[in-house]
């Protein structure tokens, strides 16, 4: 039995925990208490389900991708998180946490964002719930995800461009943590992935579990059986944990695909579980990309949402237990998959999600012809058109 695995509060074996400045401890304890009280509260659950249904457009479809299936020699279903409002799974978590913030009486929410999807989803939920919203985003990401930056501003969120460090998601989280430390009494920190100090990895996972719950019901309706495998991309790992979680106790192979960038040997990648080691970053103990002294390494991925040197502690735990197989694909492979899904199915995937799709040919070799596979299409790719064009050497 996989579930029931908390020997110590907030820990996944040695992973997880609360490695934060003392100033935040009180706030984390308050958050944990509020969440534990509300998570099984019938009214909270009813409210959240209504927002997920009427606002986010859930359940999202599970689409049989006929042409792609033929091309890769598997029977592939896509879980269409790209069709959730704001265009990615991130909305599941931001609706949940904004509702939590509202119940806790907080008036201001802050968040970090990499690709901008979590920033947009936060600004969206905050606009709807009437919360003041500020988003931290690395300057490099601001440049490469302009569309999302403008969307956040349209939603009346203030976007802070973070110019320290590598100017990506890692630095955005640093800055959001600094803001939270300063404004802890009034502010709710809406973390976007299953990373950070306890209770965030648990809260975000719980709000993303809806992906797996729906998938399970839908695949049973369509195929009358569970899939042979599920594949999802892993940056911090929220879409992956969300779709995996309700299958952990089943005979379903699970694959988490990280960003191999320009190849593991080049050093230019974000494949934390494939190439990292144990460490502490952003409040939890997990796998980290670090040098031999413990300094956090710069990362690279063509997909801004995967460009992060850490990973959720529960993924580190799943790796340790051997329950999930973690592997990676390169920028080039992800880009090929990005094109392939456009050509075969008329679907524009986010570059992050394209990493999961790029693994399908490898799965055919492992699982054999015609195996039944669900790929989590965690987001849509409108935001990535410019990056893709540049990669292909096309000026738009």
């Amino acid at each position: 039995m996989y579930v029931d695995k908390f020997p110590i509060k907030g820990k996944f074996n040695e992973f997880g925990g609360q490695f934060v400045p003392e100033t935040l401890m009180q706030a984390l304890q308050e958050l944990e208490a509020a969440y534990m009280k509300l998570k099984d509260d019938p009214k909270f659950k009813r409210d959240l389900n209504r927002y997920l249904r009427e606002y986010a457009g859930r359940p999202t479809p599970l689409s049989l991708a006929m042409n792609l299936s033929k091309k890769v020699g598997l029977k592939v279903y896509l879980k269409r998180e790209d069709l959730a409002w704001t265009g990615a799974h991130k909305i599941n978590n931001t609706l949940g946490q904004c509702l939590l913030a509202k119940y806790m009486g907080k008036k201001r929410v802050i968040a970090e964002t990499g690709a901008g999807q979590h920033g947009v989803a936060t600004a969206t939920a905050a606009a709807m719930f009437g919360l003041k919203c500020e988003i931290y985003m690395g300057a490099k990401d601001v440049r490469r995800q302009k569309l999302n930056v403008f969307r956040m501003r349209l939603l009346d969120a203030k976007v802070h461009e973070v110019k320290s460090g590598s100017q990506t998601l890692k630095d955005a989280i640093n800055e959001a943590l600094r803001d939270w430390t300063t404004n802890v009494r009034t502010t709710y920190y809406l973390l976007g992935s299953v990373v950070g100090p306890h209770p965030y990895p648990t809260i975000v996972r719980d709000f993303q579990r809806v992906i797996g719950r729906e998938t399970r019901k839908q695949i049973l309706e369509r195929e009358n059986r569970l899939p042979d495998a599920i594949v999802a991309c892993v940056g911090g790992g929220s879409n992956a944990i969300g779709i995996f979680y309700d299958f952990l106790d089943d005979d379903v192979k699970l694959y988490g695909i990280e960003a191999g960038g320009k190849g593991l040997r080049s050093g230019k990648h974000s494949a934390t579980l494939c190439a990292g080691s144990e460490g502490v970053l952003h409040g939890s103990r997990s796998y980290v990309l670090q040098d031999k002294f413990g300094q956090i390494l710069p990362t690279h991925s063509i997909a801004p949402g995967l460009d992060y040197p850490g990973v959720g502690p529960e993924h580190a735990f799943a790796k340790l237990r051997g329950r999930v197989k973690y592997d990676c694909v390169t920028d080039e492979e992800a880009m090929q998959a990005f094109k392939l899904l456009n050509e075969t199915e008329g679907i524009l995937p986010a570059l992050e999600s394209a990493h999961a799709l790029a693994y399908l040919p490898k799965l055919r070799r492992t699982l054999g012809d015609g195996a039944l596979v669900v790929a989590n299409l965690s987001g849509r790719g409108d935001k990535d058109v410019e990056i893709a064009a540049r990669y292909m050497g096309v000026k738009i």
Partner: protein
Amino acid sequence: MSRIDAKFKELRHEGKGALIAFITAGDTSPKLTPNIATALAEHADILELGIPFSDPIADGPTIQAADDRALSAGTTPETVFKIIRDIRKRSDIPIVVLSYYNIVLNPGVENFMKKLKTAGGDGIIIPDLPLEESKEALRAAKNHGISMILLATPTTTPERLKQICRASSGFLYLVSVLGVTGARRKLSKEVKDLVKKARAASMGRIPMAIGFGISKPRHVREVLKLGADAAIVGSAFVDLIARHKNNKRRMLNELDRFAKSLKAAC
């Protein structure tokens, strides 16, 4: 008795407060740090050396920039141990390092404490390691005769404060503000309340040092008057180092003058 305990005992005897001076080790170069440290040791009672880290979440822009300069100059934890050995050849000032936890965890907590002690270090502050996660570090520090200095802040509850006082050794680090490090014009209103709470919790068992935002002699006077045993000044020293990074003689003169003015307020 440790160097830190002996220093506080000596000052209490004289009826004086302590000045704790912070700089980032290796800023602007590892070679320069022992010279800066020796200059500061003329006036400061305890030296706090930051081990530069790539992601210092408890620090404001001033110390972030210092960490970047030190890292660009090739400073590693090993370099910092060497810097401590160099300072030890010239001064007996108590030395406390400030390090984020990943740097301590990386070589193994036990191993790190051993190296720190061997180099001549006396204490350690780990700003992202709250009491709940401190067990391993506390044990290792004790094993190697290193004082582990814990932090308390305006959001720390009285019950936690009691536990933190019990676990901390050397001194207790009171964070004067909600927020990150950095010079501020005025002391926060939270300080008074915090000192009062901390005094009730510690019952005089451990010296109390106040840090974050203290940048002027009058701040030092104020916090000592509130009943603290020490004032910690960091970003204001780091600012001087940054401002005069191209003129070392001027830098050392300014640091000396500033440290002297702060100590005069103790």
